[in-house]
């Protein structure tokens, strides 16, 4: 068990990398944030009680509104769903764990750390007060000057980092570790919904990461993206909503998946039109990236584009129609059991129907013009997002027996549902009635006071209902009836085939669907592996059918037990949290006074705490990163698995491809921002700030280093240690050459030409900001690559990588990617 302490030990919960433990951690933490965001909601509702008297100042009210939105959307809804996904996706697909267990633990700790950073931001002069949509330019320090505002933005960036890690992990797991015989169309619907969710997350959250990093640059380093009148506000709108619309489905799909499971389990029927539901889910995932401008109908977007966006918006409602009807028809001719989980799932469907119909209203542009910025929108998205999440509470009741081994109290569960459902409609339906009230306004037209008071009462009822659930779960966990392996009559999915709770490595033997239904088969593992399939008599099956990929049989650690514990995910997250805490106060604590040259410049530190935190955090990051790399942590790949459409791609390589795909979107967003702003400023009015020669030299340097990294792989394959050291060493030298030229170039720009990140002696300041921030992001990538390269170099010197050259290959993928990005940056900033 490689040192995993028992569940009663506190230490276990800091070191565990097991997907079920982490699922529990996610769920509990998310419920904590539900309370946190809920308190914010009740503050809002109290303020709305009377339009003439206030309990919060205008600023405090805006902070409550912002924190409520951010916490509920980011720190509650998705993580709550990911708690279930962590626990049940590996079980449903027949895997032992997620593909990268340590990365999974890292995702969780980054999530928790980011939430704590957000909580801390309340005490740094007040948290962000620009709304959860964080519109520009209200989001720049000129209008929201508190350190806590920066802290909240950085907390969001940290959250997204963890999310990206989680996305890569789930994509790799679902595409790489499905049990033999489970084709992609055979996956349970919850897993299907999660797959669609993580595919959307891969691209949507990358856009959010990009826009968050740009905003962080504006707030910490002083760039001027979002205060620029050359389209700065609209740039935020486009990038945010490019993320923001898919985010609606990212939040909703896991809940939809729970509904699809629970409707089947509690009616005893199989999903009607299963294939069409899956196709609809895939269509929605693609279409979700084509509708974002319907959030911006009242900006200056022209009629043609608005019409197009209206058409795509209507287009995306159609697959949803089909899914809703499929859900309804699944119930017909069933034997519907009104258990608590079903009530929540069914309630979610009713709420979602109402949310969907009111959404069609918003699709008509003329109506949207009037609904924009009103409580109609607020009511609509609560019905959709929180209405969907209603099913997640059903999921909590549904899986509670599996997770704890105990049955919840059915009466209390039903009571919770009734009070929840009444409270929900009281608070959100009253918003439709008083819809003319502008959002985030508390001195509203007194005509609507009756609706808002009704809503406030409903909100308290809704909030109270959760305490019934907490009590129910706590009581049942302590003294509930034993649930058995499968308390439900008509469940189908594999999590019900093992004990409650399931054992650490999930399965007695290897799960397989090769015969058309779940069976546990014993493989024959010869000394030195790999495993071989056996026939019914336990003899080694000699005839074909072996789905081993080449890399599985070449894997050198065959008989090694899998690892389940590592402290480094926690430590690394702590270090990143400290670093970002430091950066939140950087702009206030540190002033750079530029002199004639770099030597004559002064750095004035007014508050040493923040710079110290940055330095300590960075040192910690380097230390924990190296320890992570050195740790002997083994997560075996599934021996026999369905991998469509990625057959034959090794696990880590697949993960690397997914990560790079998301990084493509990050850079894509940065470059789009550069092009968008330049277009708005007048394309031809800008000419490159820099001379093209240093850029040209750097292009050659980087391309050469791409060749040397290929040579390094060749040398490793030939088991030539000297060749590996020479080629890796050359790559490192070329990387440093690139950075040195870059440094010279920046020095030249700043001190000889008067071009800094926030000022430009030769034109628009925003042009200088874009140049520094975009090339800076690329520079950070190069720097990170150099850190990894040096790590590899030292390890190669110690004799590693000659048997298993994969780390060299995957580093090469990253390095090529960074070089390719430069090929796009070079013409944009140096030539035209």
């Amino acid at each position: 068990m490689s040192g995993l302490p028992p569940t009663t030990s506190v230490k276990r919960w800091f070191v565990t990398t097991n997907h079920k433990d982490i699922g529990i951690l996610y769920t509990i933490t998310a419920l904590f944030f539900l309370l946190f965001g809920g308190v914010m909601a009740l503050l809002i509702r109290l303020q709305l009680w009377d339009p003439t008297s206030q309990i919060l100042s205008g600023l405090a009210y805006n902070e409550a509104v912002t924190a409520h939105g951010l916490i509920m959307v980011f720190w509650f809804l998705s993580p709550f769903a990911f708690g279930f996904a962590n626990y049940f996706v590996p079980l449903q697909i027949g895997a032992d764990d997620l593909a990268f267990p340590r990365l999974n633990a890292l995702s969780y700790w980054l999530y928790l750390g980011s939430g704590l950073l957000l909580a801390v931001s309340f005490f740094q002069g007040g948290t962000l007060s620009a709304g959860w949509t964080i519109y520009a330019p209200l989001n720049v320090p000129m209008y929201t000057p508190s350190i806590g505002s920066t802290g909240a933005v950085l907390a969001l960036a940290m959250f997204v980092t963890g999310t990206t890690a989680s996305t890569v992990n789930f994509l790799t797991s679902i595409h790489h570790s499905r049990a033999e015989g489970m084709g992609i169309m055979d996956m349970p619907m919850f897993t299907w919904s999660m797959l669609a969710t993580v595919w959307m997350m891969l691209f949507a959250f990358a856009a959010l990461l990009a826009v968050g990093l740009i905003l962080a640059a504006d707030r910490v380093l002083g760039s001027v993206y979002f205060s620029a009148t050359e389209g700065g506000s609209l740039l935020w709108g486009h990038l945010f909503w490019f993320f923001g619309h898919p985010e609606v489905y990212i939040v909703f799909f896991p809940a939809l998946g729970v509904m699809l499971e629970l409707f089947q389990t509690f009616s005893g029927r199989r999903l009607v039109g299963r294939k069409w539901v899956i196709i609809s889910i895939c269509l929605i995932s693609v279409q979700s990236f084509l509708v974002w401008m319907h959030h911006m109908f009242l900006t200056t977007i022209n009629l043609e584009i608005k019409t197009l966006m209206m058409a795509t918006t209507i287009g995306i409602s159609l697959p949803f129609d089909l899914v809703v009807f499929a859900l309804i028809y699944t119930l017909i001719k069933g034997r519907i059991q009104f258990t608590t989980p079903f009530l929540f799932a069914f309630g979610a469907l009713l709420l979602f129907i109402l949310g969907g119909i009111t959404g069609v209203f918003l699709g008509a542009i003329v109506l949207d013009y009037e609904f924009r910025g009103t409580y109609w929108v607020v009511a609509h998205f609560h019905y959709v997002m929180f209405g969907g999440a209603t099913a997640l509470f059903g999921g909590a009741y549904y899986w509670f027996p599996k997770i704890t081994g105990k049955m919840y109290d059915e009466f209390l569960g039903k009571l919770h549902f009734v009070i929840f459902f009444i409270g929900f409609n009281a608070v959100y339906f009253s918003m439709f009635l008083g819809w003319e009230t502008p959002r985030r306004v508390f001195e509203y037209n007194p005509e609507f006071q009756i609706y808002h008071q009704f809503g406030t009462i409903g909100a308290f009822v809704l909030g109270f209902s959760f305490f019934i659930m907490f009590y129910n779960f706590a009581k049942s966990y302590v003294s509930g009836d034993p649930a058995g392996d499968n308390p439900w009559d008509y469940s189908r999915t594999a999590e019900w085939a093992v004990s409650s709770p399931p054992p650490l490595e999930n399965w007695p033997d290897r799960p397989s669907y090769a015969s058309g239904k779940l069976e546990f088969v014993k493989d024959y593992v010869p000394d030195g592996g790999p495993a071989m399939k056996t026939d019914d008599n336990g003899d080694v099956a000699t005839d074909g059918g072996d789905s081993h990929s080449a890399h599985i049989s070449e894997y050198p650690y065959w008989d090694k037990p899998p690892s389940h514990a590592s402290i480094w995910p926690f430590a690394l997250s702590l270090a990143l949290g400290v670093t970002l805490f430091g950066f939140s106060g950087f702009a206030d604590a540190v002033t750079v006074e530029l002199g004639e040259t770099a030597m004559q410049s002064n750095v004035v530190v007014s508050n040493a705490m923040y710079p110290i935190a940055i330095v300590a955090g960075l040192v910690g990051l380097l230390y924990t990163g190296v320890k992570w790399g050195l740790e002997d942590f083994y997560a075996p790949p599934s021996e026999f698995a369905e991998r469509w459409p990625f057959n034959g791609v090794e696990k880590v390589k697949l993960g690397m491809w997914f990560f790079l795909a998301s990084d493509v979107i990050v850079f894509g967003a940065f470059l789009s921002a550069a092009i968008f702003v330049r277009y708005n400023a007048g394309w031809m009015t800008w000419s490159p700030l820099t001379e093209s020669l240093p850029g040209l030299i750097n292009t050659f340097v980087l391309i050469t280093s791409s060749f040397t990294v290929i040579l390094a792989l060749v040398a490793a394959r030939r088991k030539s240690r000297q060749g590996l050291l020479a080629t890796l060493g050359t790559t490192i030298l070329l990387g440093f050459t690139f950075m040195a030229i870059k440094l010279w170039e920046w020095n030249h720009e700043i001190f000889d030409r008067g071009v800094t990140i926030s000022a430009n002696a030769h034109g628009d300041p925003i042009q200088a900001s874009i140049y520094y921030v975009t090339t800076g992001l690329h520079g950070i990538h190069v720097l990170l690559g150099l850190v990894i390269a040096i790590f590899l170099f030292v390890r190669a010197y110690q004799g590693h990588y000659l048997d298993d050259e994969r780390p060299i290959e995957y580093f090469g993928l990253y390095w090529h990617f960074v070089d390719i990005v430069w090929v796009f940056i070079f013409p944009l900033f140096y030539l035209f």
Partner: protein
Amino acid sequence: MIDPVILQQGSDWRAQAEVFDEIFFVFLALGTLVGTIVVAYTLWNVYKYRDDGNRSDEEFDAPVVGELPTGQGGPKAKKLFLSFGLSAIVVISLVVYAYGLLLYVEQGPDTGAEGDIEIMVEGYQYGWAYEYPNGHTERGELIVPADQRVDLNITSRDVWHNFGSSDLRIKSDAIPGDYSETWFAVSSEDVEAQGGEATYRVECFELCGPGHSQMKGQITVLPQDEWEQWYNSTGNSSESASIQAPGAGLAAPSGVSA
């Protein structure tokens, strides 16, 4: 494409509020109808197929743990597509209908000989400044004539605001560095009905800072002659001379702290 001219034959024109009310009514009626049918049908079936313990085992093929899904299409795929088709027709026809009216709203009514009056609106933390064609600027209250189309050209001096009047059903984003447009017109009958001077509430519909809730204004509509009298008197005491670049003539508001 539906020709918007049909909607405004002669000198008739329709206020945005009328267009909105019509579409809103149609959507609300159909939405309620469809919603009621779907929810009632669902509830009825859930009740009908509840597990009361006396259902026959015929035709019931209970699922088992560990089975793979079979029959991906399912027996009711036909019914599924029928309902899907129906809902698609409802949704698409609603939107096509609404789109025809959008073209009218975007274009605005013909102004005829009267001409229209174009006013610059600039949002700031926390209020609205207006600049008339003659260079006169007004703060807080927008004074316009009845029976005339008023074109608003809206921008912002600091952060993103949204200029809107729920009564008139007009709204537009006020974005720094950008200019958005909307129009409205109030008939003299409406002005008469409000006692010779019609007033409408203006609010900010985009979070713009701690004073967002207090960012209110008013549109005052006067009868043509009264308005002209007022407007002519403003020419002399105008604060700043002319409209050059849009919004350039607006002086900074006094007494407003950032």
